[in-house]
């Protein structure tokens, strides 16, 4: 009876901490953009950065806090699990519900190759055993280059659009880009958001580890599934609702951008602070599955005429279910 109550209490902590983490990440990014704008940083840079990190902060925070508190398995599991869930689970569900998700060739090629490349980089570093600070520096540097490409692409897109805009709108934009005073409220919200992220992630990792111990589940499984799916809620709501509204670029861009961020920053930053150990099964099963679903996604897009159609969505979901069954019941 006491164990049951303990499990219920831990599940409640897990759910509440997830909401705290997601809302805090939103508050943090939102006000960071406000301050960036006040400091005169271009709206394009702020917009690209905010959308790139906005939905992925929960995974990053959880992976970082888990690694710092000595639960590296749960951290690495959360990152790799999120990446598999993002493609096979979230894109699968979204394409099935919305009917299809369209793609833009230029954006898809850039983001997909980056997602595949980062997955291969991760496997390469995993082959050497622990992921150390040298690998971390290379990964973080690679992410900065990717961010630069995103900003460049957005600038090009912005230029094309501004050719059609009126002078009045340009004048308004210039006014917006000028420096203004930093709002003290924004600074307080950033601190509040950061505090919420740290506390929320700590509670999330704690409840995940405790639940794993009580239920006798390996921490890696907890990270790969419970935390991975939980911290990917922002990706799920954004991808699903944008697919339903027909905003296809945002839908697929959110997933591929998040997967790149999760590996390069979600594993890169913790590895910069302390070496991240690699579990053999991660190298032989989880990471190859992550690469496999990334390749499967491109194949399904090509077969579907540059779209992820409903059949492809169902195939992706079945792939995720099969992986979950094999990972939990055969290798768990």
């Amino acid at each position: 009876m006491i164990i049951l109550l303990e499990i219920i209490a831990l599940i409640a902590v897990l759910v509440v901490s997830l909401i705290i983490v997601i809302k805090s990440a939103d508050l943090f990014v939102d006000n960071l953009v406000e301050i960036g704008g006040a400091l005169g940083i271009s709206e394009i840079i702020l917009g690209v950065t905010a959308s790139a990190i906005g939905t992925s902060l929960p995974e990053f925070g959880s992976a970082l806090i888990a690694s710092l508190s000595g639960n590296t398995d749960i951290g690495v599991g959360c990152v790799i699990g999120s990446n598999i869930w993002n493609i096979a689970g979230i894109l699968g569900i979204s394409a099935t519900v919305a009917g299809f998700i369209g793609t833009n060739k230029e954006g898809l090629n850039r983001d997909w190759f980056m997602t595949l490349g980062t997955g291969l980089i991760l496997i390469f570093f995993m082959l050497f055993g622990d992921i150390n600070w040298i690998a971390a520096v290379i990964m973080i540097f690679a992410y900065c280059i990717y961010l630069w490409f995103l900003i460049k692409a957005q600038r090009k897109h912005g230029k094309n659009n501004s050719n059609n805009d009126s002078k009045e709108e340009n004048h308004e934009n210039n006014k917006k880009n000028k420096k203004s005073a930093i709002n003290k409220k924004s600074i307080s919200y950033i601190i509040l958001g950061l505090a919420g992220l740290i506390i929320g992630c700590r509670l999330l990792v704690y409840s995940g580890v405790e639940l794993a111990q009580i239920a006798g589940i390996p921490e890696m499984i907890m990270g790969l599934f419970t935390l991975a799916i939980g911290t990917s809620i922002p990706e799920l709501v954004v991808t699903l609702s944008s697919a339903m509204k027909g905003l296809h670029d945002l839908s697929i861009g959110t997933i591929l951008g998040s997967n790149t961020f999760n590996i390069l920053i979600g594993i890169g930053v913790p590895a910069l602070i302390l070496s991240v150990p690699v579990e053999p099964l991660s190298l032989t099963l989880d990471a190859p599955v992550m690469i496999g679903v990334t390749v499967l996604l491109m194949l399904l897009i090509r077969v579907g005429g540059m779209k992820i159609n409903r059949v492809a969505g169902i195939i992706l979901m079945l792939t995720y279910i099969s992986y979950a069954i094999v990972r939990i019941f055969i290798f768990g």
Partner: protein
Amino acid sequence: MYKKILVATMGEYMDDLIENTLNILNDKDAEVIFIYVVETSVPFLTPKKVKEMMISELKKRGEEILSHMEKAFKSSQESGIKFKTIMTEGKPAVEIVKTAADENVDVIVMGTGKSIVDKHLLGSVSEKVVHSAPCTILLVRTVN
């Protein structure tokens, strides 16, 4: 017969909607209103910046659709029929019904929309409008 017609569009089957609107126009004093509703609702836990980005993209798309409709409609008919476009925010079915009542239109023209599977998964705007419209509705068959 119909003096004021409201055409609701989400950007699909625009040619079918224009063709059917022209078919029921037989009064030179008629007025045609095209409406596009920017659906602003997003699920709980959607990041604020992403929501803003979504709304901005939908507005941009709405402007393109309405401008396309205006051009296509004007090039398809010679008489001096009055024409206007409305872009509004909210729930599509609610806004279409509200605009129909506010503008006192005689008929709403819209597509039947989705397949039976899509209707169950996504819901149907036309079905909701049918139940609460203050006027006649012409549902254009748009499902293959």
